[in-house]
């Protein structure tokens, strides 16, 4: 059938009990939480027992204290950086999706755009950031947004093109037997088939966008941005402060990732009961 391995037998009417998903999900969250906690404990104990100097690796407790102590400033810096990441993510993802739609529609464009995309997409940020600073100004948000958008654009483009082409031949034949116009094939079949691919790319892009924004700030940017903070704190040998900034950024990246995962569940209600990974 349409999902060969995933449907072992008739389970008609076996709608999962309400809340079953929640239980499963919290069970799913337990493992990474335990792992994270375990790492923190080992880290703390190791630093104390081995007498590692804080310059090399501060203990988690010291980092936590720094976060709490400096919270307003950290939150402000994270927002300055996060703003660039968010804007760049939205522009890059939206542009990548639209370009993917266009590329899948016109074969010559697809053949041209994907290879070029791969080349541009593999440009290192260390090269693009100074260029965009030159173009948009180092003290403009748009130079950071451009770096992020470029990093996000190509995974979304490539996955959109792959996703739109992923609809099974039999489904395409079915619509052909109805003499369905191209637009209907796109909306009724290709876009729904592409969504898992697109969201896969968005998850990756969410993490990339924060990294790209921070790195872009290393090449000049607002004095109250997280990237600038990390740079100056490192220069002043305040490694605990630098670590605290990284923690705040991670929290932002996690939130963005979570928002994408949430959007994914809303956009694809038919995949909500996660029966394993079906991509």
């Amino acid at each position, binding site marked *: 059938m*349409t999902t060969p391995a995933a*449907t072992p037998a008739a389970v008609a009417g076996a709608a999962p009990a309400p809340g079953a998903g929640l239980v499963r999900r919290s069970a799913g969250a337990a493992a990474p939480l335990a792992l994270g906690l375990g790492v923190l404990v080992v880290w703390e104990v190791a630093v104390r027992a081995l007498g590692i100097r804080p310059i090399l690796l501060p203990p988690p407790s010291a980092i936590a204290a720094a976060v709490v102590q400096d919270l307003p400033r950290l939150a402000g810096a994270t927002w300055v950086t996060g703003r660039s990441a968010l804007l760049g993510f939205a522009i890059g993802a939206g542009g990548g999706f639209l370009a993917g739609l266009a590329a899948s529609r016109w074969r010559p464009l697809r053949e041209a755009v994907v290879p070029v995309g791969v080349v541009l997409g593999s440009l290192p940020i260390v090269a693009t950031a100074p260029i965009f600073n030159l173009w948009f100004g180092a003290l403009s948000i748009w130079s950071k947004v451009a770096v992020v958008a470029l990093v996000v654009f190509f995974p979304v483009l490539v996955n959109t093109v792959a996703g739109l082409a992923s609809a099974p031949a*039999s489904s395409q034949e079915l619509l052909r*037997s109805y003499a369905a116009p191209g637009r209907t094939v796109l909306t009724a079949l290709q876009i729904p088939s592409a969504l898992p691919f697109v969201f896969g790319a968005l998850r990756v892009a969410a993490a990339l966008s924060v990294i790209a924004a921070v790195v872009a700030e290393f090449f000049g940017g607002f004095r109250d941005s997280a990237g600038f903070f990390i740079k100056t704190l490192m220069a002043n040998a305040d490694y605990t402060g630098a670590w605290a900034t990284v923690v705040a950024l991670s929290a932002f990246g996690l939130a963005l990732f979570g928002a994408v995962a949430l959007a994914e569940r809303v956009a694809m209600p038919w995949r909500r009961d996660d029966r394993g990974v079906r991509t």
Partner: protein
Amino acid sequence: MSAGEPALAASRADAGVGGVVALRGVSKDYGATPALAPVSLDVAPGAFVSLLGPSGCGKSTLLRIVADLVEPSAGSVTVAGRPAREARERRDYGMVFQAATLFDWRTIRRNVELPLEVMGWRAAERRARAQRMLELVDLADVADLRPPQLSGGMQQRVAIARALAFEPALLLMDEPFGALDELTRERMQDGLLAIRARTGTTVLFVTHSIPEAVFLSSSVVVMSARPGRVLAEIPVDLPEPRTEDTREDPRFFQLVTEVRETLRRGVRP
């Protein structure tokens, strides 16, 4: 009833007007490889014709040519009196594939509504028709579930409901029960005949199961191994309606034997 002149034997199905499906010298080559030798065949209104042959004999290709999903290399195809392309664009047939080909992002009800949506029906009418079709295949109670929650047999019944939703005069079925276990398969066959008794739909049915072809059909077109050609068209004179007793009827076994022997001649000439 033995082989005879294929074209002549085949054309007996219709008095000459052309029938719901009329094939004249239809063949298909893939490059230099012939997949289908020239085939002529008529399907009369209300008939249930099975195309039976070994794997790779081109019977699915022939069905796809009728559906205008594959271009024939030569010959003419008429469906409901029109060229195949025009018939497809007018939605003169419904098609059921070997895989149910349901869309997971739609509920069962909205899967059945799909062709009606493509045809621009209004929502209320779509819904009413889908409801009626789901009742016809006995699945009204799962209308709001999604395809992965249904068994293979149930999914295929949804596909049949979807194919019949716009009441086409012709139903094209490409090994629709091939992936099902024997008992489910027999239940689906009974169900298909019951539906047809109510709708009067003409059916062109591809299978490689001899008992299935004999049980369902008003005539069985036996095809040779690749490149496929029609060895014989064997009329099935079993009493109607076909029931569980039909499967035990001595005449049923006779016909199965006859079809099998014809088939064998085609495999080892």
